[in-house]
């Protein structure tokens, strides 16, 4: 195997066109993304000058939405809050199809309930038990964790030591514990109400999909309110409220002693598409670089057929089985190294360029950033192997290039930039080698967010490594078929 690898590597590095193609792939991958990053300028002209609002960061490090109406007291130590939610109503502005009326209604993820939160700053740790518009009773904490808890109207949140226990009950007597989380130190305890905007997707003027976010609010009615361990008076705060916001989104509380009515608008959840630019935007060049990679991968084998070199190659390796795997290893290694250089340059420099132009970047962990960079390089390498295998199967470079591009790029194009509806687009990105682009998605889609999680806006239906595995399966199957065919057929 080692001599085979060495001979294939010698071929690769001595053919000028293949090296040139690999360099073109690197330049396209890094250059296109950097150009896009350099051109992405965000302007936030307002009364305070060009200052963009800060995006709150949750305890887990992700960008979050944290805006709600909060009626609360201080919680210095142990304590508990118990309520019965007796009514949830709300307002939705300008819903489809007419988009011309403000109607009563509650959006599926409107939330009213009880909460213990570290403090009133946006993004601080919390645990909440809530009744939602259409998803039943739930317990959520720290923005990303979400547990379903039936449809009970009684909610209770207890703190003992630093353990918070969320419980629900159908009647206020028999309680079912749903979750337990940790929150130590002084905190605030109280009632909250919030309602995310109603999302509609439409065609943009440039042909892509554009999400529209229409204001809603929710009013929760609380009775049988019992609070233990709290200190200080009841206070109302509109957490995260922006000055000059429309009156429908301004929170309010009315307290009649036995009944409290709370109105609010906003969301307490991962920020989704509003959480800033995603890091993979600096790697948009990979789709174009991929074409150069495909051409090199195909030519690495078809050129041998065209020039008759294949005869010498096969004479040197009469078993034939090792030839294509050796070629695959060489082309994958070269492409991976080149892709790694391109991505490792494009991501940090691209992010720097975007930050300099006022763009907020959705924060991700270092591990995710490494996965996006290495994953992009790996995706290029696996595609090169697929192209090589198809080149060996077809022995005609034009046919192999067309087939690989139609397998990898056309589904991606149809799914993200055409009229194909989201469900069909998601199947395209599950079943074709284009699934591998999922490795670039840095921000996951959360089920508890009414968001724009469709392919056209950068959300893939498969998890990153799952999607990558689909592409690997295609490459492995094609390579296996090519090895078998090479053994059987006349060179």
């Amino acid at each position, binding site marked *: 195997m080692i001599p085979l690898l060495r001979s294939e590597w010698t071929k690769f590095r001595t053919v000028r*066109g293949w090296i040139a*193609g690999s360099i073109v792939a690197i330049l396209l991958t890094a250059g*296109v993304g950097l150009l*896009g990053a350099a*051109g*992405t*300028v965000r302007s936030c002209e307002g009364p305070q000058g060009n200052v963009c609002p800060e995006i709150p960061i949750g305890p887990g490090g992700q960008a979050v939405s944290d805006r709600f109406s909060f009626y609360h007291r201080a919680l210095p130590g142990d304590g508990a809050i118990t309520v019965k939610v007796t009514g949830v109503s709300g307002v939705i502005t300008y819903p489809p199809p007419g988009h011309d009326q403000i109607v009563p209604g509650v959006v599926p993820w409107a939330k009213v309930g009880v909460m213990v939160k570290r403090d009133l700053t946006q993004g601080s740790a919390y645990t909440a038990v809530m009744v939602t518009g259409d998803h039943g009773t739930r317990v959520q904490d720290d923005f990303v964790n979400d547990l379903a808890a039936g449809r009970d109207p009684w909610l209770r949140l207890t703190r003992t030591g630093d353990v918070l226990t969320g419980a629900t009950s159908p009647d206020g007597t028999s309680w079912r514990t749903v979750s337990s989380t940790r929150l130590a130190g002084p905190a605030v305890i109280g009632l909250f109400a919030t309602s995310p905007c109603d999302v509609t997707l439409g*065609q943009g*003027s*440039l*042909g*892509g999909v554009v999400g529209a976010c229409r204001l809603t609010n929710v009013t929760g009615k609380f009775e049988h309110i019992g609070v233990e361990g709290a200190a200080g008076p009841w206070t109302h705060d509109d957490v995260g409220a922006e000055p000059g916001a429309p009156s429908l989104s301004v929170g309010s509380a009315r307290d009649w002693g036995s009944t409290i009515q709370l109105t609010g608008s906003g969301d307490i959840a991962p920020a989704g598409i509003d959480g800033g*630019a995603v890091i*993979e*935007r600096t790697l*948009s*060049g990979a*789709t*174009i670089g991929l*074409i*150069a990679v*495909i*051409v090199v991968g*195909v*030519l690495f084998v*078809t050129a041998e057929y*065209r020039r008759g070199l294949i005869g010498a190659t096969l004479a040197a390796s009469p078993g034939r089985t090792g030839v294509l795997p050796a070629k695959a290893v060489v082309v994958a290694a070269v492409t991976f190294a080149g892709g790694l250089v391109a991505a490792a340059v494009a991501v940090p420099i691209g992010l720097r360029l975007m930050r300099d132009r006022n763009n907020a970047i959705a924060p991700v962990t270092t591990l995710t950033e490494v996965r996006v960079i290495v994953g992009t390089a790996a995706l290029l390498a696996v595609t090169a192997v697929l192209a090589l295998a198809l080149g060996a199967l077809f022995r*005609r*470079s*034009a*046919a*192999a*290039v*067309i087939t690989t*591009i*139609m397998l990898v*790029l*056309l589904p*991606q*194009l*149809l799914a*993200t*930039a*055409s*009229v*194909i*509806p989201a469900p*069909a687009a998601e199947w395209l990105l599950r079943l074709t080698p284009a699934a591998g682009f999922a490795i670039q998605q840095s921000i996951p889609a959360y089920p508890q967010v009414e968001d724009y999680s469709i392919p*056209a806006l*950068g959300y893939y239906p498969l998890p990153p490594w799952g999607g990558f595995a689909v592409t690997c399966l295609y490459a492995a199957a094609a390579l296996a078929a090519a090895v078998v065919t090479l053994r059987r057929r006349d060179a």
Partner: protein
Amino acid sequence: MTAIRSEWTKFRTLPGLPWLVVLLVVVTVGVGAAAAALVPCCDVLPSRVSLAGVLAGQVAAVALAVGVVSGEYATGMITTSLLAVPGRGRLLAAKALLTGGLTLAGALVAIPVSAAVGPGATPTAVAGSIVYLVLVSQLAVGVAALVRDPAVAMGVTLGVLYGFPLVARMVQDPAWQERLVWISPMEAGLAVQGGLEPVGTWAGLAVPAVWAAVALAAGRARAGRARLTGP
């Protein structure tokens, strides 16, 4: 005229090439019909849905152009062709005319049939998409004459066609998206199907026309100078 006739003879006797015209029709109609079946009625422009197959079908037009032009360099047939038609510009023009004519013939079947199968299309969209496919074939002829290697020619042409829209979607910055649309032959060219307000309808077809003209001129320049064989 004789040059075109000899190109026609080569085309119809070579295995594979005539099938590409059939493929153009089948893929365009097939993908269009699939899109029409998938998209719920009236959500988006009917012209876009009916003619969605052009996105995939244009690959056949590109393959045809590359086959007609690059194929001869690969087999060495180009020497014989140039002995018979010494004017290199004339030979390229004959190849361009043949490819354009065949694509036009395929498109004249594929586009009206797609419109009939799908939820319908405006006459502007039908006529414009036919013109678009012919322009794409001319772009591919120019690129193939310029780079000669069939794989590289396919890669460059499809990269130009598919690359811009994919990057434009990922950039998500409206100003840049609009700039990219205006240099993207596919996006601007298909604005004739409607739904792309900043480009309008007919004006967008100028973009693939300019690309095709530049590619043909560059291909002509290379054909006039470079040696015959080798990459």
